[in-house]
């Protein structure tokens, strides 16, 4: 058995005593060096899960472990050292008055020596193509530029887990691909766990595993391929399938049979090619 990196054990949470439960008996594990996508309809509890992982909230029931440490009031500072989190709206996250200071902030907090700090600021801002914006105010950037800076700030601290809560939603398609490539490269190099909370169907196909949330409960844990075979059910719970998967379903409905439900352009083209040579 691999050792888990993040573990939720029967976690239930509500925002107040009078309020409804927004997470109900949620259990799952995330392993180190794994990329897990958490998906689900609006209000299904995804951001709440992210906030529980780094101790911004605590569950009323159940327990959460990060890197073997039980997340509670006493351990949050240790836990947060290992967790790099980018929220939906980066505005709430900026602390520095310049882009450079903002990235520096997390490094100072971790007592990184000055020269290394400078190196890391340069490297991480270059990695997200924001190296021309060192002295800009984070609040005075475009939506996508803000997201890039927020991502640079967490890459700089090299955490053990990166949690991206819709952190690339405002990027142009090419920019999104580039940033995801940068992040997965870092992930490979440093063996970190990557948790992406996203509504981007194509991005989900790239993850190792998917946790599907529905009304505060884990609805399914599976590979992207398994998840996207459930077209009807997904739509019922506010989700959908990606373009290639939809096109493959149309082809299946007119009689084609695929060995593997295709998820990428290349996979579908390959399946069609096999057919073509068989005919």
């Amino acid at each position: 058995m691999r050792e888990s990196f993040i573990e939720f054990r029967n976690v239930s949470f509500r925002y107040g005593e009078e309020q409804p439960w927004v997470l109900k008996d949620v259990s799952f594990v995330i392993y180190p060096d794994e990329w897990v996508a958490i998906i689900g309809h609006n209000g299904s509890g995804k951001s709440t899960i992210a906030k529980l992982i780094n101790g911004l909230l605590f569950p009323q029931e159940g327990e959460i472990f990060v890197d073997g440490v039980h997340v509670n009031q006493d351990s949050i500072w240790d836990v947060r050292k290992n967790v790099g989190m980018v929220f939906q709206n980066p505005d709430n996250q900026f602390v520095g008055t310049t882009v450079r200071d903002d990235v520096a902030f997390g490094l100072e907090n971790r007592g990184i020596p000055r020269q290394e700090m400078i190196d890391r600021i340069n490297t991480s801002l270059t990695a997200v193509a924001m190296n021309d914006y060192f002295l800009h105010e984070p609040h005075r950037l475009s939506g996508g530029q803000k997201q890039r800076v927020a991502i640079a700030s967490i890459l700089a601290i090299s955490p053990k887990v990166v949690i991206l809560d819709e952190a690339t939603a405002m990027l142009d398609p090419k920019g999104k691909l580039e940033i995801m490539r940068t992040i997965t490269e870092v992930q490979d190099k440093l063996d970190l766990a990557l948790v992406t909370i996203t509504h981007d169907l194509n991005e989900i196909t790239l993850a190792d595993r998917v946790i599907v949330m529905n009304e505060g409960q884990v609805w399914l844990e599976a590979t992207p391929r398994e998840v996207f075979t459930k077209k009807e059910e997904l739509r019922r719970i506010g989700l959908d399938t990606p373009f290639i998967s939809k096109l493959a379903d149309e082809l299946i409905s007119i009689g084609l049979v695929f060995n593997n439900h295709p998820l990428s352009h290349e996979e579908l083209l390959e399946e069609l090619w096999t057919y073509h040579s068989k005919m």
Partner: protein
Amino acid sequence: MDISFKNVSYTYQPNTPFEHRAIHGLSFKISSGSFVAIVGHTGSGKSTLIQHLNGLLRPTIGQVTIGGFQLSSEKKLKQMKELRRRVGVVFQYPEHQLFEETVAKDIAFGPSNFGVDSEEISRRTLEAIKAVGLPEPLLERSPFDLSGGQMRRVAIAGVLAMNPEVLVLDEPTAGLDPRGQTEVMDMFYQLHQQKQLTTILVTHSMEDALHYADHVIILDHGTKYMEGKPEEVFVKKKELNKVQLDVPEVIQFLFKVEKKFGVRLTYHGQGLNEIANELHSIIKGADSIE
């Protein structure tokens, strides 16, 4: 309302070390009743452009005309309130437009500010909350205690309740769940047609631009790079790649089919079932040649 930009430039923080020209020399026309998509890389000036449409920004150089309203650096617009009544803007980050203590009050803010009576406001509020797919009990909650996607929906409902003539949408589906993205875009489109609105959509989804817009304007580093009909603009792969963009996914796929099978399929708005049939006959057709 007809909209036109004549040689418009906008500079943030002029005469400071942070001076930054976000758009320059921008000219285009949008005729009343059209659905226009504005696309462009991160930082290309889209949000800056659309903030001119309700007078939040005034051009540093040039002139913006929206119906009978004119914006230029020389003089402040006197009928600003009237302009804002007629042009509804959904901003890129919904948090920026929520501020009341309950969702109901937030949605009512626009219309009550413009003198709509309370009975009509309640009617519009219920209609708007339904249009964005939120349950009614949510009206009594604080907009700040909502999930990201729920906030987005409330922000949209607030703009709908104003009954604007011009609908300006800055990435309105960011943060919505996949089914919600389709539902909300379809809802905008229906409204656009029913009420003959002029709709301006900023989006990173070339698919949405292709699907809903009848005209596309492409920005690159604050200038106009290209404009035209979506079917014409969205096949120019090389030109789009030069400015960080790409053709919509369906067209990307058809290009790859052509490369692999040597057969060209053109996209003319056909559905996936039709494309599936076309693919099927390519596979079979190749057979009859062999």
